[in-house]
């Protein structure tokens, strides 16, 4: 598991990017924390820089949106899901990301 930040540093509606085997984006959606792979599955953009609307993150480059609960894209141009990761908050407010096991990197960022 990877230390992401202190909960105080991730207010509602905000996001941060942490480095695991690949960058991971962590979001605070009204008090619930979600983590997904940070790089959009369409081309090269960082979802932590995107526009958060409820449980959906809109990519800052071409506006594909992903459901943070499942990682699934809800519209084109993205066709593939982003990986989701579990997030826990320790008693002291430390936010941890439990990075999913890396998948073989078959597809490069086109």
């Amino acid at each position, binding site marked *: 598991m990877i230390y992401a930040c202190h909960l105080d540093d991730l207010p509602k509606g905000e996001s941060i990017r942490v480095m695991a085997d690949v960058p991971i984006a962590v979001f605070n959606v009204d008090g619930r924390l979600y983590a997904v792979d940070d790089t959009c599955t369409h081309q090269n953009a960082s979802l932590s820089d995107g526009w958060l609307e409820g449980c959906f993150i809109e990519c800052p480059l071409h506006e594909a949106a992903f459901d943070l609960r499942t990682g699934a894209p809800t519209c084109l141009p993205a066709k593939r899901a982003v990986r989701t990761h579990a997030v826990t908050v320790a008693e002291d407010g430390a936010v941890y990301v439990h990075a999913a096991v890396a998948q073989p990197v078959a597809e490069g960022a*086109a």
Partner: protein
Amino acid sequence: MKAVTVVGASLAGLGAARALREQGYTGALTVVGAERHAPYDRPPLSKDFLLGKAEAADLALAAEDDAALEVDWRLGTPAAALAPGRRAVVLADGTEIASDAVVVATGAAALPLPGAPRLAGVHTLRTLDDAEALRADLAAGSPRVAVVGGSFIGAEIASACAALGLETTVVEAAPAPLAAVLGPEVAAAVAGLHAANGVRLLCGTPVAALTGTDRVTGLVLADGRAVAADVVVVGIGARPAVDWLAGSGLELDRGVVCDPGLRTALPGVVAVGDAARVRRADGTTARAEHWSAANDQPPVAVRNLLAGRTVAAYARVPYFWSDQYGVRLQFAGHTRPGDTLRVVEGALADRAFAAVYERDGRAVAAVALDRPRAFTRLRKGLAA
């Protein structure tokens, strides 16, 4: 409506086919493409494709569920005419496709250098075939490259050439590239990327001639300066590909003129993407030559096509991006001379900033270099 033909098989054309099915059209659907390729994404052609970081397969636009669209694809033969009297689209090989309705999505074609002879080593970049030819030429030895035109595509090509380690010169006829689009301050910051990355930028002088007999050896500027080059890439703009519509009854004016709902002068014909010129309520017309318009217009056009009247207008704020020298530029809105630039985050001098253009105290456009998060927030605040 029993037969709809979409003419143009790229982002806007595929988008129109998808929108037709999504909006409940169940009749015959034909998509005509001048190129032999299935729809592909053009922006990476001047970026990752030139660098060899993306291949043709990576650019394919089709998604898995597109098979359900049941499209009759007619690829590799351009449309030659629209014959509304016969309700047909006529292809260059004489084939006629019966069409109750037509979506014009033929895009634009790259402009060649006026009056220049045909020489090996001279390229434009619009299609996948163009990009393959240019990439092959850039990989042959270590050519010196001259890019004619310093706008987005020229700058992206120069950036790719610099990344490939090639000696590169950009020649721009205007006093500063992109000043008309970005305003002087931002344009200067962006133009500075060339020098910072070892690319020579020559501004304010048009190209007078290309040199060479069979193969290009360089170019000569109007002031007599010569630039030696083994490869010349011409990036001076594009012209809507609407010649095939001459005599069809459509109003043509550097594109197909249509109403804000993308409907044309002919019932049953709509236009989308680079080929569409929208006449606004105040009578002025404009084309939205961006990926985002090609992506967003088809659902609106299709809605109006199926309704038989204009029930929705395309009213999104124009948005485009450009990747140059590892820096991402994003722009949204409309700016014009006299607007005031206000930097919201970062600094122009660092070439990392987000800023708004203000007119009468109101933000009318937003721009950023490498500030995607701030940019998106500014963009969302712009009124359509």
